[in-house]
């Protein structure tokens, strides 16, 4: 997080430089804004390797477009919309890119504290990777809807506000996304355990 704040300040300059460049101030302190945007982006893409880059891009967009924020919605909703648009663009782009290229194996992440059982850690990573693979097969609008509604458990009305579409549209996308995702997950050994 500290690195993100440093990066944002390096890229966008300090308060005086932003003032000289004609950039408006966000209505909250920098660390709070970075924290909010990272949390919102993580709620969309999960703790994936591209989370930091996407947060950085979203922060840049928010600051550059802050003067166009009209205050018709809460500022947090505005930032969430920017994050959602950024994440959906990234998914569209990455799905095209991955048809032709591959990044190879992801680097091994350091162990999280509290998890000492190697089998449990491996299983958790496998499940997370399987879930992300399954989500990557959904279209960007469907993926955004199911992630926000079912995984982040936000109310449908709030998701409609974030995705800037009517609530019935969200429900329709959600329905198709659920059918596709469960059909993928029930075939996956990591998620095909004994039903409760």
């Amino acid at each position, binding site marked *: 997080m500290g690195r993100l704040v440093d990066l944002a300040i390096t890229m966008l300059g300090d308060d005086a430089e932003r003032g000289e460049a004609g950039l408006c101030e966000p209505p909250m302190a920098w660390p709070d804004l970075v924290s909010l945007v990272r949390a919102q982006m993580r709620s969309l893409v999960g*703790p994936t390797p591209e989370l930091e880059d996407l947060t950085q891009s979203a922060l840049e967009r928010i600051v550059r477009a802050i003067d166009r924020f009209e205050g018709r919605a809460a500022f947090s909703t505005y930032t969430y919309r920017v994050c959602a648009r950024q994440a959906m663009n990234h998914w569209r782009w990455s799905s095209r890119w991955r048809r032709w290229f591959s990044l190879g194996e992801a680097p091994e992440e350091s162990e999280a504290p509290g*998890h000492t059982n190697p089998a449990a850690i491996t*299983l958790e990573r496998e499940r997370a990777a399987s879930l992300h693979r399954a989500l990557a097969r959904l279209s960007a609008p469907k993926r955004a809807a199911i992630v926000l509604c079912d995984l982040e458990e936000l109310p449908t009305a709030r998701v409609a506000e974030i995705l800037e579409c009517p609530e019935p549209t969200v429900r329709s996308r959600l329905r198709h996304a659920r059918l596709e995702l469960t*059909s993928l997950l029930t075939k996956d050994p990591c998620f095909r*355990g004994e*039903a409760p």
Partner: protein
Amino acid sequence: MKPTCDRGFDANDVAEALREEGNVDIPDFSQHLETCLMCQQNAHAIRSARDTWRSAALMDDARARNASERRLVRAWRTPRPAFGWRSALVGAAIASVIMLRFGPRWPEVHAPTTGPVASVTPSATVTAPPAVAPAPTASARAPAFLVVRDCAACSRAGMAANSTLDAPAEVPRGASLMLSWAVPGESEPASSLEVTGPARIAPRIPREAGENPGLQVDRGSAEVHTYGESEILSPHATMHTLPKISSAWHFEVTPTRTNIVVDSGWLSVSAVERKAPSIHLLAGQSAEVHAGGEIVLSPRSAPSSSESAHPSPPKTVTPPPAPSPSASTASAATVEEDTDVSLWQSVQTALHSGDRAVAETKARSLMLSGRSANYREKATFVVGELELSRGDVAAAQGRLTSLASTTRDPALAADATFLLARSYKDPLERARVWGRFLASGPSSPYREQAMLERGRALADAGDIDGARQIVVALKQVNPLPAIVARGLVALEARTAR
């Protein structure tokens, strides 16, 4: 072909029923779910996906905390001597002469440490303090439990704060007793065990030096936070944690079983009755250990032990030498008879009738053994409210802080934060509570109300500039909720003076 079951339910219907929304008749669907394999698979896939998503987020949080601690440690620079090596040699020679001259007068300096408690030995050399003070390790614990916080009922029962628990004790009904492992000179700050009455507890003093003291809870419920190796026992189960691991869990002991829910970290659970293999539970997982030695894992989550590596993890872990065959129907019969809904209704009824003791007992039961996270969180909030109402502020603050930061329900998070902020007399502390709420994502629909509350607290604390900034930020929000708009006028008037 449309993937629906024989009743016409598809994955979307299952997901809507799990969220308790849509047109699905929930009681009817719950009955159907017990028999329909396809719906069970869909429900399992949806729940597992959600659990995996949450678990990944929790691990990310833990990694972030870890990284922050590493940054703190890195920020500490090892002090380097500013003087030359000749001065160091002269200093060392003087120190040696002093030690040789006066050494025999301090025999205790060279006396070997005996027993499990390490004595503090004066050191001749000055070492740099660590950047982050390490938590006392289990090896530094003394073989005793200290009462950290008592209540009036506990004091009457002979368990006052700072006293040592060295014999079996009865915690009275409605009482709340917080214990911790004793370390030289104080209680261990990183570990605590809060027992809620009625309960019967007994310390298990170690027979060998270096062994950790354990605590036996024969009846009642308790919440445990430990750093390091610890052992808690019930008549049915042994709960064990490893060194250098932070874990938190709560459990309830009834005459027939022990219900265990792990809140964070890692816990090894084994049955007392038979020599069965122990199971490992991670955060969010739970288990019931029955009097016969049977361990029933909660259907909410799969086990995190080696058993979970199988494609179809067994829900019931039964040791091989079973004197009487235990069928899965038997374990189903012992499952909690009261459902979450009926327990929640009984909590509400008791609250409406003014019977706070019954309401708290039911709410605690739901908090500890509820199957739905929503109901467990609601029950936690009620317990926090009741604790505040009877003056147990510290316990309520801990509970509400945890609830406000972990719940996914924005309304409940806002309510918990509101109650938590009200529990502090210091306005600056209230402002900090609201600040934490505002900094936590994802954003809440109650953000503007929270900003207003923070502004009021800052104004109370005399930070008029801070309050004014909030007024400016709130005035830019359009449309502003009516209740916030009214409060904003008053706050603006205060900051304008």
